[in-house]
């Protein structure tokens, strides 16, 4: 009952969020009738996902047939949730997949490509003008924060590599690695040549 209550609470939070993206809801509707089981090996936990036109229903038990079962430890499930290349994660040695994998990847893709139109929802509370103003301010602030963070990262890297010489710069390191590779190849060639010469001396 506790897991049922927890999942009901998560569902109540998740579905209004999904409803902010009209495209996601339409894509979920196409998965109506599918039952996907997520079987987490460590910690042991099983969740059933039932996508449909009104969002995703979560269940702790499901007695009917399941279309797809994904078995993996929590770490792999987290990787699957965050990774761009889901197929690579699904082919990992710790992941087991039975049934209709296309439904699972489609659901994962829907969740990853969510574009929440929060401005429209906010407009219902504070009016379209207020929502547009707030939206442009927030977008501006987010853009500024992103630019500042990028600039800080670049300046810090330059300072550490070029000015304080605490770390080796990326290009410098790549050049050194390339020289090392060349050297290794030359050594391999030399070793092979010496071996041939030694063989020739023995046969003559």
């Amino acid at each position, binding site marked *: *009952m506790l897991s*049922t209550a927890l999942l*009901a609470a998560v569902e109540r939070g998740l579905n209004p969020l999904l409803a902010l993206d009209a495209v996601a809801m339409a894509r979920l509707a196409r998965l109506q009738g599918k039952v996907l089981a997520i079987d987490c090996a460590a910690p042991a936990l099983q969740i059933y996902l039932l996508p449909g036109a009104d969002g995703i229903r979560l*269940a702790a038990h499901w*007695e*009917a047939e399941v279309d797809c079962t994904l078995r993996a430890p929590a770490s792999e499930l987290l990787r699957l949730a965050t990774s761009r290349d889901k197929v690579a994660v699904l082919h990992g040695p710790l992941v087991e997949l039975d049934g209709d994998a296309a439904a699972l990847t489609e659901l994962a893709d829907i969740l990853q490509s969510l574009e929440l139109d929060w401005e429209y929802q906010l407009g219902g509370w504070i009016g379209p003008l207020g929502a547009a103003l707030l939206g442009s301010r927030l977008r501006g602030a987010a853009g500024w924060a992103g630019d500042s963070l990028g600039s800080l990262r670049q300046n810090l890297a330059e300072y550490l590599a070029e000015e304080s010489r605490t770390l080796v710069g990326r290009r410098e390191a790549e050049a050194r690695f390339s020289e090392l590779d060349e050297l290794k190849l030359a050594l391999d060639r030399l070793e092979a040549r010496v071996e041939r010469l030694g063989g020739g001396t023995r046969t003559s």
Partner: protein
Amino acid sequence: MNDSRKPEAEPTTHFGYQTVPESEKAKKVAEVFHSVAAKYDLMNDLMSGGVHRLWKRFTIELSGARPGNRVLDIAGGTGDLTRQFSRIVGPTGEVVLADINASMLMVGRDKLLDSGVTGNVSFVQADAEALPFPDNHFDVVTIAFGLRNVTHKDAAIRSMLRVLKPGGRLLVLEFSKPTNPLFGKVYDLYSFTALPLFGKLITNDSASYRYLAESIRMHPDQETLKGMMEEAGFERVTYHNMTGGIVALHRGVKP
């Protein structure tokens, strides 16, 4: 010539703690539900603190319903289970919401239509003891918080068995007996003081909610109901206690 034979006494049954003639019970239960129909959902949320939604969720999860199935929701009332089943069975399936009480059926129908649940749902006013459906017709039959109001529970369970397909499941969600005696005392206190008070405040009808508390006490406990289902012909009968046994979900399979 005088007829010396005494008129045969009509069999009696219980209506809450009262003993009434069998023919009276259905009428009295109907009065209760006519009285509470309009505020039924609000009262359910208030009395159970919203937990009735979790009990119904669990029922859905254990039903084994799948796309294309035919589901009968007896005593479906305001349609909480029907709404969920409608989503699961999809356009190729069918859900029948049946209730003996016209007021409850109308509230349920309006609520479902208003929320866009249409297409695969039909509404039937029917008595659980004599279901107006063919034999071997449904994949799943549910009765949630309805069996204790039925006059002849054995007949109702047999009727449900008849309309189920072989391999079909019956799910009975009903108030039952708390497993912990101390918790049972607290629950009794709550039932006989708070419930009639809520009834008085919200629906101006404390008697109906006193009946609710009394009818729960008169309803068969977990093991007795399990035995009744087995006697009717169900196999693999199991039950799950919920919220300390306040409610139990019985499940049986038609052989």
